[in-house]
């Protein structure tokens, strides 16, 4: 009887236990009740029942427990179905997660590529701008190249031999014959070694006798002004106004021919 009471108490427990636990509890109760019934029947076979109603009581309990058990089984089946569905949904969620990650990767890659492309395009634009700023007509360049080459300023004359007084820079003689030289009194210095006497003896005075001195610009018809500066160079010039565009007027591009030597 005590066992039957315990079984009754266990079966009707209000705690939130899992279905499995409840199922197992119900099974235990059934087992317990069946055992008691069998014991009772075994005893009653040998002797008279002390309490006649006990077997029917146990039987009732047994039937009740069985009913509970059946219900629990149904519940278990339903729960199983739900669990299965849950697993399917979880799989779907996982797949979607992967898809999202994949898309994220691709997006990042695309962003990287685009950023690189944009950067390179900007660099290209910068260099285009730079090139455009320094654009010079080919005619001007050719004229300038002719000017500095034909006068043997940057390229030696083909018949040059050691002893020829010509040089890739203004010689002493030329310096003294120029504007600078004329301004000051010519001081005695033969550091260049090319005194007028030597040049005369060599019979080569191409530049001196020319009315235009070689390093002077022949196209001075326009107003080409040097940048403004204070005449006191002791002070640090505060950012030379080289970009004094107001002073520089438009120049004519057709410069007169260079002072070429006749050699």
């Amino acid at each position, binding site marked *: 009887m005590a066992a039957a009471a315990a079984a009754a108490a266990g079966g009707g427990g209000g705690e939130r236990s899992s279905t499995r636990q409840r199922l197992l509890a119900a099974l235990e109760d059934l087992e317990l009740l069946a055992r008691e019934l069998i014991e009772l029947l075994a005893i009653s076979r040998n002797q008279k029942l002390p309490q006649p109603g006990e077997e029917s009581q146990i039987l009732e309990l047994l039937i009740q427990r069985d009913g509970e058990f059946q219900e629990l089984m149904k519940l278990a089946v339903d729960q199983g179905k739900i669990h299965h569905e849950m697993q399917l949904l979880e799989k779907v969620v996982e797949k979607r997660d992967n898809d999202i990650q994949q898309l994220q990767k691709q997006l990042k890659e695309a962003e990287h590529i685009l950023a690189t492309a944009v950067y390179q395009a900007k660099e290209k634009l910068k260099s285009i701008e730079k090139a455009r700023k*320094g654009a010079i007509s080919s005619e001007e360049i050719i004229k*300038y190249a002719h000017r500095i080459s034909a006068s043997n300023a940057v390229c030696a004359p083909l018949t040059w031999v050691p002893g020829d007084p010509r040089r890739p*820079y203004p010689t002493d003689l030329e310096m003294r014959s120029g504007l*600078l030289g004329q301004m000051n009194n010519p001081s005695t210095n033969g550091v260049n070694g090319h005194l007028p006497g030597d040049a005369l003896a060599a019979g080569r005075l191409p530049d001196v006798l020319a009315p235009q001195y070689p*390093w002077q610009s022949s196209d001075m018809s326009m107003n080409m002004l040097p940048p403004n500066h204070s005449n006191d160079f002791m002070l640090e010039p505060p950012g*030379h106004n080289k970009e004094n565009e107001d002073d520089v007027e438009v120049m004519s591009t057709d410069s007169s021919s260079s002072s070429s030597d006749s050699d």
Partner: protein
Amino acid sequence: DDTGNRLRFQLELEFVQCLANPNYLNFLAQRGYFKDKAFVNYLKYLLYWKEPEYARYLKYPQCLHMLELLQYEHFRKELVNAQCAKFIDEQQILHWQHYSRKRMRLQQALAEQQQQNNTSVK
């Protein structure tokens, strides 16, 4: 004032090109011009000749290279030595002859080739 500016332009044009003459640089160094702060500032000021609108007037554009070097104190100090100036002079002349020599080599090569063609035709 305009004529003053024109004169200044011509003078500075002449002077900056004189800087291509290493002997002149040696001369200036030995007389202590490179130690004068005002002169050094003037050299810095002359850098405007690097701009294309001014450089176009230079007959000796190599003076700009010398001008750039002159911005360095070490270079200015070295120019006191005559050997330094002589070395620069020699190098300049050798470089000056570079294109003439190249042209002569090309002409020689062309002449040799033509000779070969003539002999093969015969």
